[in-house]
């Protein structure tokens, strides 16, 4: 009894918290959204029933476009296969209903499952490809589905297509208006889910993988897995839209699924604006405007409307691309935003201490070697990184410093040698290493340019989250919400530590040095034990160098083990406890800077033999 009461009480508290969050997040634009949805739901009252089927068909197609927006917008995957996935969903449904005589619901579930499986398989098969090849493979997939459907009449019912029995639920026939309301609900949910996901954990991880895959991997983002997931989700939504679409049409037409449909949906997403949840719907509305225009002109001039539609769609897309390609909706929004200039604050480091590093451990590398063809980039390299010490790695250009760092963080696999932290051996890719607290930054400036400063740091802070999966995030479970707060706290702390105080500023607007600080903040937000920095001081002014050196001092004192690759020896003298000198992949000297500077081998490496002779 008391346990039940306790559970009830907790539920009430959580619901109240959720309500508070919803109220806090509520804005005039949310009111507008809700009103738009209500208005759309009331359309059947004014539109004659005869027109509802067309409208419902449009919304189902728009649902598939929103689904494609998940892959294209969130993850930047150029999928040209959405028409194929629609076709797979539609014909699975049609075959089960028309030929096998299954009832509505089971066949719907199977159709969705089959499309999801097709999406997962395609995602796995193309997961490691460069984007260009993803586009080609999905394009070929669209052609294959079209050919399968059109040249095998036994499967697809030939030119007449497959005719479905009437759609009934609990004995009632589903009217076009019913379909419209179902479609509207589904698309509203899909848009809402996208809007919830995009600025939170899973969406940020996808955006990070899209904007800078190497940097995302370096922060421990499971790039491949999240891309596969979003691709499969995108295909699944298409399958759902396709299956419900044939229920509405009552007939499955084999020639209507394929490359042309894939192209139209892709264009809809880009035309309307891939990054905004509503973009694909706007894009598809524009395309169907082209269709009506083509029918008008075609009827008037005696021209084939299908061709005119292709032409208008092509020209419309080219027009948007010629104007910069941001899409209609983002263009409208940035025009609106540009009328209200944002306020900027300068960056200065806060007077605060970083938190102590929990269970600090030394990182030990033994005998690391790495060859690229005949070039020996790293040759039997040993390194000890002690907690509470700054270790500088110096050496001439091309001496293997960056190779050493990339090998330590798992970006490169060494040919031989071991890396360990405490009792744990570090092997394989970056993610397990970042989880063990070994994190490195990229040599070039590598921020996620389309995200804000805070969102960049949140990508790092997302590493140790347990409840940040897509489902928990979409349903805003209490644990996910609580963790959101914790992650934001960590991200803001890391930002204020490095001195970035404008969390909502787009990362692309930062100066080169600020971007390096942001990379450092993102890395700190993962709560590392060992931090490896590749030229953190590049492009810094004298004052910025001072401030950075102070920060490194603080981090050292917090118990972090630090490795810094640096060319500026004055800066090295200021921050480093120990120095290791690399030359041609070999460690030629190690010790304090003074000891190292006195070393004959080092003098030779830096100054050349001629000057010494």
């Amino acid at each position, binding site marked *: 009894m008391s346990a039940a009461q306790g559970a009830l009480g907790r539920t009430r508290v959580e619901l109240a918290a959720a309500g508070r969050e919803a109220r806090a997040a509520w804005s005039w634009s949310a009111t507008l959204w809700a009103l738009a949805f209500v208005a759309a739901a009331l359309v059947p009252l004014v539109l004659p029933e005869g027109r509802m089927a067309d409208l419902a068909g449009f919304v189902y197609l728009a649902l598939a476009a929103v689904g494609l927006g998940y892959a294209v917008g969130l993850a*930047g995957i*150029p999928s040209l296969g959405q028409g194929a996935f629609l076709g797979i969903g539609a014909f699975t449904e049609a075959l089960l209903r028309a030929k096998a005589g299954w009832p509505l619901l089971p066949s719907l579930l199977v159709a969705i499952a089959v499309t999801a499986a097709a999406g997962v398989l395609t995602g796995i098969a193309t997961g*490691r490809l460069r984007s260009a090849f993803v586009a080609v*493979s999905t394009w070929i997939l669209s052609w294959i589905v079209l050919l399968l459907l059109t040249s095998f009449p036994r499967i697809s019912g030939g030119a007449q297509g497959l005719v479905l029995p009437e759609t009934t639920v609990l004995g009632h026939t589903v009217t076009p208006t019913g379909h419209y309301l179902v479609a509207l609900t589904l698309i509203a949910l899909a848009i809402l889910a996208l809007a919830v996901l995009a600025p939170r954990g899973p969406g940020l991880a996808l955006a990070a993988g899209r904007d800078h895959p190497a940097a995302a991997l370096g922060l421990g983002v499971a790039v*491949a897995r999240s891309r596969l997931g979003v691709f499969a989700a995108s295909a699944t939504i298409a399958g759902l839209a396709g299956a419900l679409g044939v229920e509405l049409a009552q007939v499955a037409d084999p020639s209507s699924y394929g490359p042309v449909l894939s192209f139209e949906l892709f*264009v809809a997403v880009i035309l309307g604006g891939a990054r905004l949840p509503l973009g694909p719907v706007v894009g598809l509305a524009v395309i169907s405007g082209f269709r009506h225009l083509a029918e008008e002109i075609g009827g008037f001039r005696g021209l084939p409307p299908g061709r005119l539609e292709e032409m208008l769609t092509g020209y419309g897309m080219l027009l948007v691309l010629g104007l910069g390609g941001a899409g209609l909706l983002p263009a409208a929004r940035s025009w609106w935003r540009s009328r209200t200039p944002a306020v900027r604050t300068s960056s200065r480091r806060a007077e605060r201490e970083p938190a102590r590093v929990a269970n600090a451990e030394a990182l030990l590398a033994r005998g690391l070697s790495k060859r690229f063809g005949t070039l020996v980039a790293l040759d039997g390299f040993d390194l000890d990184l002690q907690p509470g010490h700054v270790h500088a790695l110096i050496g001439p250009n091309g001496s293997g410093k960056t190779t050493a760092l990339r090998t330590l963080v798992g970006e490169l696999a060494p040919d031989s040698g071991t890396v360990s932290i405490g009792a744990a051996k570090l092997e394989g*890719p970056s993610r397990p290493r970042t989880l063990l607290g070994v994190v490195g930054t990229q040599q070039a400036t590598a921020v996620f340019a389309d995200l804000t400063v805070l969102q960049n740091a949140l990508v790092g802070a997302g590493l140790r989250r347990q409840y940040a999966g897509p489902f928990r995030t979409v349903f805003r479970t209490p644990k996910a919400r609580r963790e959101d707060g914790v992650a934001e706290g960590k991200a803001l702390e890391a930002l204020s530590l490095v001195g970035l105080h404008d969390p909502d500023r787009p990362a692309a607007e930062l100066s080169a040095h600020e971007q390096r600080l942001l990379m450092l903040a993102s890395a700190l937000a993962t709560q590392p034990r060992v931090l490896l920095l590749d030229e953190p001081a590049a492009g810094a002014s004298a004052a910025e160098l001072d401030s950075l050196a102070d920060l490194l001092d603080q981090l050292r004192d917090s118990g972090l083990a630090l490795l810094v690759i640096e060319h500026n020896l004055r800066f090295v003298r200021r921050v480093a406890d120990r120095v290791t000198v690399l030359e041609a992949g070999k460690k030629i000297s190690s010790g304090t800077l003074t000891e190292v500077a006195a070393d004959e081998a080092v003098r030779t490496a830096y100054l050349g033999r001629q000057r010494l002779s």
Partner: protein
Amino acid sequence: MSVVVQVIVTGLAAGGIYGIFAVGYSLIYRLTGVVYFAFGDLVAFAVFTALLVAAGTGPVSQTSLGLGRFLLGLAVGLVLCIGVGAATYVLFIEPYLLRGSTLGWVASTLAIAFALRGMVGAVFTRPAYVFPDPFHFEDLGRNGIVTIAGASVQIRSFFVIALAAGLAALAAWTLERTRRGRALQAIASDPEAARFVGLPVETLVALTFGLVGGLAAIVAVAAAPSAPFTVDSGALLGLKGLVAALIVRFGSPWAAFAAGLGVGLAEAAIDNMGGLGLGPQYGELIPLAFALGVIAYRSLRSEPAPSPA
């Protein structure tokens, strides 16, 4: 035996066209990293422009056309093809390449394809067109057909094969032996370095986008009279050329051309294997599925790459 000869001749004739397309796809991919989705439709645009100038949009009788009018049509078609190919590259593809936006150039190449196809389709409204034949192959042999080892083959097929091989050789020779060709190779290996040593990179690349279209259009026009040509034919030819180019990973001109011939032969062979449960409905499907399988296999065997961009 007769079937084998039949398959080889028709396969090589079709494969020659695919091969020229594959050469073009490979060249463009190596120069820019772009998969040129508009290629097939650019060629269809050139072919139909040539038809428009030579014979108008009405039904054409195969014999009614003089060589002069035909050559004029072909010339206009080629010039427009090169112009449109180069201009669309500069306007819509290059800006996105410079930004490193794959989504951008995928969208623009597809949009160019559909704009061209829709435009041609709005002018040429019949389901299919018979192309005029200025060389009068039907006067040779028996209505243009000879019998070899019991197989009846079109004499035109040999002309198409020879022409395609000749143009592929010309492309390879241009690339390897001429100044312009070596410039293109330099751009392919390092565009920045090529720009640094003073090569007009933009102009050369833009011209290439048009020239590969012209090259493929010549072969397509030569082959067109042997079968009805539709507005969508260009896209299909392009697709098969793309399949060939993918199989050899956008390799050298010779490799791409050979792959095109292979795709043509495979298609002809599968079309004629009705007895083995295959047949024409598989002829287009199997090469596509094979290419997709090859891509997937390479992808799964490759190291997990951190750079999908």
